[in-house]
């Protein structure tokens, strides 16, 4: 119990009252920025992994004015020719033919629901599963399929995936920038507050020096103080950020929309976000220590 109080009454400073709140706000922002970075990264990885393992092959409908049976026969003939090319292609695991019903459903938002009329215009679609470890020569495959059935298209999704990844990377860069700015603002704040405290407590510090205190003894007091306020503020900020992320995840689940990405953090992600708190404490401690030793070192 005795000596629990620090020699320098840093807790009585007016700066000590607002600083934990400032740290809380910074940890809140940094946690959200880092969480968004992790969510985006996980989304990009998911998309990339999913789409790299699949190609879409689109076979144009046969040009026929005959009846349904003849049309179906021609479609099947083209399908078989394409399947034969795919079967010979290294890395292709299997190909699933999408039913005309399924294709019609895919285009329904744009072309309406009159499926009988659309049937003759709809292409045949193949979902081709490929071995992710094998690099498929898409242009060569495109050429071979085009030779088998003129007008057949291979889509490896890279065009729109590339744009999506670029967008995601921009979001990640923005989040990193926020993290950097928050770290810089936090460091500057701790430097400013530490210098102010050094000025306020100069008589006490001078007395401690005259009694034989070394600079590191005094720096340790500031360091301990920085740890206390950053931990206090950091916990509040982290709890607030966790609450917000939880709320987003809940709202995302409620919407059940395939268009919106799910805000989903794994245990590892949560651990990484929690590192913000740890890093904040370490930065605050080191900054306070460095500021004190540097400032005192300049004194006589």
């Amino acid at each position, binding site marked *: 119990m*005795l*000596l629990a*109080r620090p*020699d320098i*009454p840093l807790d009585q400073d007016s700066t000590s009252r607002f600083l934990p709140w400032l740290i809380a706000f910074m940890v809140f922002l940094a946690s959200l920025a880092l969480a968004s970075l992790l969510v985006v990264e996980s989304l990009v990885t998911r998309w990339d992994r999913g789409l790299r393992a699949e190609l879409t092959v689109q076979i144009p409908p046969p040009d026929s004015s005959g009846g349904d049976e003849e049309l179906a026969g021609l479609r099947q003939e083209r399908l078989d020719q394409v399947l034969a090319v795919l079967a010979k292609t290294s890395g292709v695991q299997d190909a699933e033919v999408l039913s005309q019903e399924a294709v019609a459903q895919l285009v329904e938002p744009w072309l309406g629901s009159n499926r009988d009329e659309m049937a003759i215009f709809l292409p045949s679609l193949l979902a081709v599963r490929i071995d992710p470890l094998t690099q498929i020569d898409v242009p060569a495959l495109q050429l071979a399929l085009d030779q088998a059935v003129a007008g057949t298209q291979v889509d490896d999704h890279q065009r729109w995936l590339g744009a999506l990844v670029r967008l995601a990377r921009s979001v990640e860069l923005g989040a990193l920038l926020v993290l950097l700015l928050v770290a810089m603002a936090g460091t500057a704040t701790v430097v400013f507050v530490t210098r102010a405290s050094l000025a306020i407590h100069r008589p006490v510090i001078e007395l*401690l020096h*005259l*009694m*034989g*205190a070394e600079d590191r003894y005094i720096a340790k007091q500031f360091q301990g103080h920085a740890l206390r306020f950053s931990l206090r503020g950091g916990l509040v900020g982290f709890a607030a950020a966790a609450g917000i992320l939880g709320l987003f995840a809940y709202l995302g689940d409620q919407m059940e929309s395939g268009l919106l990405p799910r805000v989903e953090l794994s245990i590892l992600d949560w651990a990484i976000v929690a590192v913000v708190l740890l890093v904040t404490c370490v930065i605050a401690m080191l900054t306070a220590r460095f500021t004190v030793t540097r400032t005192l070192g300049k004194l006589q």
Partner: protein
Amino acid sequence: MVRFEQVSLRYDDGPSVLRDLTFSLDPGSFHYVTGPSGAGKTSLLRLMILAQKPSSGRVVLFGRDGATLNRDERAETRRRIGMVFQEFRLLDHLSVMENVMLPMKLIGHTGPQVEHHVRELLSWVGLGEALDSLPHTLSGGQQQRVAIARAIIGRPSLLLADEPTGNVDDQIAERLLYLFEELNRLGTTVLIATHNEHLIEQFRHPIIRLDEAQAEMLSSDEEED
């Protein structure tokens, strides 16, 4: 223990506070510093605790020139010195007990045994009932005794006291002087800046008399004459 070699001191462009002081204090000696107000008694003590650099000359403490010490060495030297400040300089947010414990804390000595020692010392100076009090709730005399207890708790090699009996009654003053003499017998070199002629008469020791920025060494007998 302490050696002044042609030490002079002036603040900025002001007049000389101390001029060409040359004297030494042997280990285990006991001296008073006297002189009129403004004679430089406090400045002399500040030079000895390395709170002030001399304008010229050398202050040698424990065999080392104070000007050549780095910050850590200076701190180490100061830990061997107990200082009673004229204005006490107690830490108002700490209790009496915590204030007196401070020098021990600085050298990493804490724990029940040290606490017991501090309690004993505070009882001896008549503050056994005020262990948990905050300094600003005490009288001037009580604060002075806390300051003295803080200065001597670590059994310093050198004790510097600036008017240590200025705020206490004669009985307490005598008791404190007995305490300083006891410390001196145990090996502490003592230097007391004081105006108290009565105590100087009663507890006879050599004197450094400061006047017009210069020092004169007098034996206790010379002072009597």
